[in-house]
């Protein structure tokens, strides 16, 4: 059982810690660093609640080890809004369209949306809507609030509802 010293940034803040090899990135973010916005549920990669950005790419924090994030820049849902509280456009869109109910799946959904809108910046609204919709296959909303999420996607893509 090995322990490792890791150094990474989370939402721009630098952290140095020792982790046991078997600690997942999701657990490390929540239990060691206190970024409890990242939710863990299935821990099989299926539900998407735990999705964070690692070096800009949206991925499952339950399927990555903390030790593998050594040297990485991680973004969690806490890192989306601006320091003054102004919501990220995807958060605003989810809010405007009742895209969340209990909110359990929302941190993951918001992270994926933020990564995909950034990747499709400048794309036409059809491509933006398609990209966002496709990426949502990686998220399960147990409240089944998919219509609200789709409305938020259309707002982000600039497609009239």
């Amino acid at each position, binding site marked *: 059982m090995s322990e490792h010293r890791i150094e990474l940034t989370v939402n721009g803040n630098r952290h140095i810690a020792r982790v046991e090899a078997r600690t997942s990135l999701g657990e490390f973010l929540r239990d060691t660093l206190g970024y409890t916005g990242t939710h863990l549920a299935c*821990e099989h990669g299926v539900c998407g609640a735990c999705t964070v950005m690692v070096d800009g790419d949206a991925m499952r924090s339950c399927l990555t080890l903390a030790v593998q994030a050594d040297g990485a820049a991680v973004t969690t849902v806490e890192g989306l809004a601006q320091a003054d509280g102004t919501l990220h456009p995807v958060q605003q869109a989810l809010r405007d369209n009742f895209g969340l109910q209990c909110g359990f799946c929302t941190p993951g959904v918001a992270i994926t949306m933020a990564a995909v809108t950034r990747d499709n910046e400048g794309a036409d609204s059809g491509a933006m809507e398609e990209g966002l919709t496709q990426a949502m296959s990686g998220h399960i909303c147990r409240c089944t609030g998919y219509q609200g999420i789709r409305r938020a996607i259309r707002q982000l893509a600039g497609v009239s509802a």
Partner: protein
Amino acid sequence: MKPAPFDYVRPSSVAEACRILDEAGGGATVIAGGQTLMPLLNLRMSQPFILVDINGIAALKGVARVEGGIRVGPATRQADALRDETLARHLPAFTRALGHVGHHQTRNRGTIGGSIALGEPAAEMPATAVALGASIEIASVRGTRQVPADAFYVGPYMTVLEPDELVTGIVYPDWPQGHLVLFREVAQRPGDFALVGLVGALALEGGAISRAGIAWFGMGPTPVRARQAEAALLGAERARIDPHAIARAAVADTAPFDDHHASAEYRRTVGQRVFARALSETLDLRSAA
């Protein structure tokens, strides 16, 4: 923490990784994208003593043109391979199939080699390797070897890989410019594993099929090459091909099983229909069902 305790090492060369695998005497497991292995660790279905992370080995990453084909490094992320222009231009069947592997989020971490080495019978990448005639490069302290993809898979999640061996490359042979892609997948939702799927490439010369490589996924314990269909297509004039007869021949090679998603009978019935439809569309035949 869900997994049982293990040591973690991150070698920076193939030689070092092979040495670690050798010294562990079967107690080590390679981790690439972890998109399959991490759930198995979390369920304690896999309990290695040492986890060998190959993501630090630069030589295992990237897509390169080689003599007679294209070599894909096993630690290449699925998302990177999906964006790769060389693959999209020269091996469109690969790109088409890869778009169906998991989700945006799992492709950002999962690798091509992980999918190849796992040998999930319903997975797209093993069947694509079989259909296109790829060969798998393997290394260990004992030396290197190359195994054709259709001899690499021996059963569900079973390959010819020994515990001390590492997949170091997947080499896809060139296919003629302008060859056609055959692809169909039936899944319950996008990103789910296929209930039934087929992938292949067809080349035409002077109106007749000059080369055919087709494989099924989700239709047996391993990817299943549609040998009888390939044989029936070879040399056939495009316009005279009966897609239904070829589809029957294609299904004759399969050995699907019942599981809680679908029965073997369902898989055969749907497989035959989607095969005929895919072939009609790809060859632009009128008699599509």
